[in-house]
């Protein structure tokens, strides 16, 4: 493991057992989050983003199972830890903000109670913990934080609830924050407010962020490094400029092309990616994207490409950019 990385995932494969058989939701996923960096994960629905973050904190639903691979966090393998060891990391060293603020807080406990509860590791009395909670709420921009500490989640708007969720996640000053589409449920003007707040807090605390989103604009604005996922695989990773200015994988190229915000010229015919996301129960033999790729050639349909490129730098899983061994 590279010591400058907070999180390093190597060869992670995850399966779900369902009525339709075993679904390989993640296959051979590599990902690294350097200390102090914001890493964005982009991908469309069903690409395995959520499965990946649930594997990191080891909260996969009961029918999911890690088949192979390792997840190293600050030097130790998370997959090899006992449950109490893992619990001591959750919420303290790694914390999470989830997608829908309306359902991610307990509805019958006041936010003060919830924020005090998550500080159970600290040896402080309750009033000190409450004071810390107020400070944190102020930092994320909750007006009248002290007066509202005993309010319940339903008394806050969606944007406020997401701020509270961020405050809770950053309370313990974790070294890694996993943000799972934290602004998808919010309106555009609120989205901007919250992203900026997140950026400020990240800079002042110096933590790393793993930021999951399908919104390319947000990724481009916020992240330093970007990982592109498709059908349960990492198809490309690199710096934000690599990905947006020099995309190598045809999927990445198409995805960026498809974003209507990208197009300077107004056009009535939008670019699209024809075809459908592959069915996990019947994966193609070759490249996962071959069925929809406009550049696919013979080899693509029967040989899966490897993730290749500069080590630790810009890499793509494509036969076009990686001619393969022996050539």
């Amino acid at each position: 493991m590279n010591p400058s990385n907070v999180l390093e995932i190597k060869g992670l494969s995850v399966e779900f057992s369902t009525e339709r058989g075993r679904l390989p939701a993640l296959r051979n996923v590599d990902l690294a989050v350097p200390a102090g960096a914001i890493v964005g994960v982009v991908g469309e629905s069903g690409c395995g983003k959520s499965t990946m973050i649930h594997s990191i904190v080891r909260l996969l639903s009961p029918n999911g199972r890690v088949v192979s691979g390792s997840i190293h966090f600050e030097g130790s393998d998370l997959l090899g830890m006992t449950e109490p060891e893992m619990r001591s990391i959750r919420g303290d060293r790694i914390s999470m903000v989830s997608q829908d603020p309306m359902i991610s807080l307990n509805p019958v406990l006041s936010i003060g109670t919830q924020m005090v509860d998550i500080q159970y590791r600290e040896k402080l009395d309750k009033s000190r913990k409450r004071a810390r909670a107020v400070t944190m709420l102020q930092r994320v921009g909750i007006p009248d934080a002290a007066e509202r500490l005993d309010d319940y989640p339903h008394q806050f708007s969606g944007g406020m609830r997401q701020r509270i969720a961020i405050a809770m996640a950053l309370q313990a000053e974790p070294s890694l924050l996993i943000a799972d589409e934290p602004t998808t449920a919010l309106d555009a003007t609120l989205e901007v407010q919250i992203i900026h707040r997140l950026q400020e807090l990240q800079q002042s605390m110096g933590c790393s962020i793993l930021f999951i989103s399908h919104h390319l604009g947000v990724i481009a604005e916020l992240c330093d490094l970007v990982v592109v996922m498709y059908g349960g695989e990492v198809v490309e990773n690199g710096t934000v400029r690599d990905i947006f200015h020099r995309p190598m994988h045809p999927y990445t190229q198409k995805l960026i092309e498809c974003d209507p915000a990208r197009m300077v010229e107004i056009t009535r015919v939008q670019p699209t990616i024809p075809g459908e996301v592959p069915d996990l129960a019947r994966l193609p033999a070759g490249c996962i994207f071959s069925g929809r790729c406009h550049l696919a050639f013979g080899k693509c349909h029967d040989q899966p490409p490897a993730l290749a490129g500069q080590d630790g730098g810009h890499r793509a899983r494509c036969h076009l950019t990686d001619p393969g061994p022996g050539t």
Partner: protein
Amino acid sequence: MKPLLELENVRVRFRTRSATRAWLAGIRDPFVDAVHGVSLQIAEGQTYGLVGESGSGKTTLARSVIGLVRPNEGSIRFEGRELTGMSASDANRFRRHVGTMFQDPVGSLSPRMTIRTLLAEPFKIHGLGNADLDHEVRRLLDLVGLNPNFSNRYPHQLSGGQARRVGVARAIALNPRLIVADEPTAGLDVSVQGEILNLLGKLQEELGVSILVITHNLNVVRHITDRMGIMYLGRLVEQGPTREIFRQPRHPYTLALLSANPEPDPDARINRVELHGEVPSLINRPSGCEFHPRCPFARKPCADEFPVTRTGGDHHSFCCHYPR
């Protein structure tokens, strides 16, 4: 150009409490204005985009156009004929000329019906049951680019994009003059969004329909609409030609909304107008210009006086004391 659809001063009020409850709580006017004083026109063959954040009243406005919500004031004219206060049978005849698409691609299809039944339904409802329905169903599926054997499937067996195509097919089944599309791209992946937008564009070219698009996605509006309107707290704060508004937004809210749209380019430098606070509740509308508590450019008169609507050339109008 002759307007196909004309809205004048439309106001839709919703009851917030029952009469007895309001009386108990001492509220004299237990209503909110979900839509207030909205006037707009859509010409034949034109695409109009209605933009706004959640709670801005854009969906309510669309529902009043298709007759699901009855406006309390104002008039809605379709091909010059007044729709408000129309008899039920006249309203039904009018519905033949308007196709509707709802937000949820799968949820807006009746779950226990096959696609075939769903597509044949408009014909049956409007007394065209003796048409060759199988032929019509195949024609519609073909038109929206779906394989004919989809007709035996049920809505939950479709992907979001496919269900959306069925929604489009239903909307155009009776050759309408106007399509009202509420968030046509909601819940779809970027790569599929384009397909639906292209489909709408193609159909518009072939059939010459007008489209009213309701969305929060500015990118969609920018590419497919001719004119657009921006709603805030139930009012239309700015409207005009789409190019014009994107080039030079005049209302500060429009400006904030446009700049809140992050570009997929790490080097794009955005002069962002950031708003304070959150959208106020409809029950407590701010005084004066209703945007002033959040407006970064607000000055003294903004808090007291309601701004008049001004026009800035080419039917570009905005409702602000100090337009940009």
